[in-house]
């Protein structure tokens, strides 16, 4: 960041990007459709499952592929578990950076490790799951997985409450987050802010409801909305979304049935979608994650574009910091 300061007040701020520019798009254009899947894990390494889903969804749009029922349910379950661990870690990191050195992060990572255990027993890897495929998922759940997941989800609200008790009423947290980094709804929309950051400004726009992708229309859940658009609202948004995720997960565990998890018609190897282009997007924990693919009929995409949520959310970084500060 290039920052001009006056005392502790930010006068000008220009973020500098590119320190983790790993040429994902170029590599994706030189690789087959399937071999880009493990690369998507590494885009946002907290949420490999949702990244997989966004990519699979786009390719399914591009080639017109159906997904069997059980696979859709599994996707919802995994995406919501991802959301839980992402939001928990986010709170931990936020408090870490605010000076609560270590402790909140330890709490968050304790819960995160449990979810990672689930991912590991399902896909073989803790973080880089590479689990979804076009037209389904890679493998079915091992025996006992559902029960373990159900138990975890049942116990999760206790952790949320604990975290809430520690954080939400904490005087230091309130003093340092309320009225800090305010963002207006108009600017947020115009600057393409998505995800919890947008909803913290009070804009009701959640792709799970708007696009209704996957089986989300089958679940009853609410979209938490903020009021002030400050850091505190953004923080609370995470806590509330975790609660809603638990609600979704419980319904999904009730509804999921046995069945195939892969569309048998899809030829995964030497996969050639028809000529055309597609833009698919999902509500990743950090915002709208989209993939834009152009196919020229070959085995590699002609254009492979990732629409990253956080990168675009950073558009307003300067505006957030310039806003009048309470001190």
């Amino acid at each position, binding site marked *: 960041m290039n920052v001009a300061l006056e005392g502790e007040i930010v006068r000008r701020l220009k973020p500098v990007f590119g320190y*983790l*520019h*790993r040429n*994902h798009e170029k590599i994706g254009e030189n690789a087959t459709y399937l071999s880009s899947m493990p690369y998507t894990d590494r885009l946002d390494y*907290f949420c490999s499952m949702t990244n997989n889903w966004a990519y699979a969804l786009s390719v399914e749009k591009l080639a017109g592929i159906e997904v069997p029922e059980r696979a859709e349910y599994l996707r919802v379950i995994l995406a919501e578990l991802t959301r839980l661990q992402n939001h928990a870690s986010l709170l931990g990191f936020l408090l870490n950076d605010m000076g609560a050195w270590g402790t909140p*992060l330890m709490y968050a990572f304790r819960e995160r490790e449990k979810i990672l255990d689930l991912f590991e027993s399902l896909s073989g890897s803790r*973080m880089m799951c590479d689990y979804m495929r076009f037209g389904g998922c890679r493998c079915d759940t091992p025996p006992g997985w559902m029960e373990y997941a159900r138990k975890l989800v049942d116990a999760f609200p206790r952790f949320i409450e604990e975290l809430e008790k520690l954080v939400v009423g904490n005087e230091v947290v309130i003093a340092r987050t309320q009225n800090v980094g305010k963002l207006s709804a108009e600017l947020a929309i115009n600057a393409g802010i998505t995800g919890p950051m947008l909803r913290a400004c009070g804009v009701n726009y959640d792709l799970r409801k708007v696009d209704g992708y996957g089986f989300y229309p089958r679940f009853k859940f609410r979209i938490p909305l903020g009021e002030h658009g400050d850091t505190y609202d953004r923080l609370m948004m995470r806590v509330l979304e975790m609660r809603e995720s638990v609600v979704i997960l419980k319904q999904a565990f009730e509804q999921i049935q046995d069945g195939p998890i892969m569309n048998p018609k899809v030829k995964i190897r030497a996969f050639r979608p028809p000529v055309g282009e597609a833009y698919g997007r999902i509500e990743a924990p950090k915002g709208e994650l989209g993939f834009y693919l152009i196919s020229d009929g070959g085995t590699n995409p002609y254009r492979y574009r990732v629409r990253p949520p956080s990168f675009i959310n950073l558009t307003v970084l300067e505006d957030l910091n310039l806003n009048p500060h309470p001190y």
Partner: protein
Amino acid sequence: MSDIDEGLRKELQRQGVWVTSMQELYNWGRKNSIWPLQFGLACCAIEMIATAASRYDIARFGGEVFRPSPRQADLMIVAGTVTKKMAPQIVRLYNQMPDPKYVISMGACAISGGPFKQGYNVLKGIDRYIPVDVYIPGCPPRPEALLHAFMELQRKIDSQRLTGANKAEHLDPAEPSEFPVPSFGEHDLEPPANREVFQPPKIERS
């Protein structure tokens, strides 16, 4: 690595006398209080944090004091993809660390560029610019692997000699402790690798 006769030491210990050498004491202190530099580059950094967090708890090995300043750190854990844009900063940080300093190259990316090796902005291994002590393969390496690397490093520190012909590198004034920082060129970093540190493996064909 002790020069003291083990039998004699045991015998003395039985008598209530504890014998050690300066080198042993010094290395024992160093190896159990390694302070890593606190920075992460990519996905591997999350596993590094997981190693430091509740379940894996690197504090059991004396390495939990992550220092945000290179001046206070002994160990640089290069966790993640080193992009060409980032590489000069890494070398600069390394140069700012006081001797003795060690480097763990964590993950496929830091070793060779890993999955992103073909990328135009990805450095094909941090060992092109600075010497590395322990390499951990994996993408990402599990926290256990990082702990293993940590123990390997402790073993290395333990075996370093303070005196004599083959004493530790950092005690030899002839050995460099700073390395040239690459600069941004028009197409690539200048130079693309530090030939003093890094030689690509020779191709043996017969």
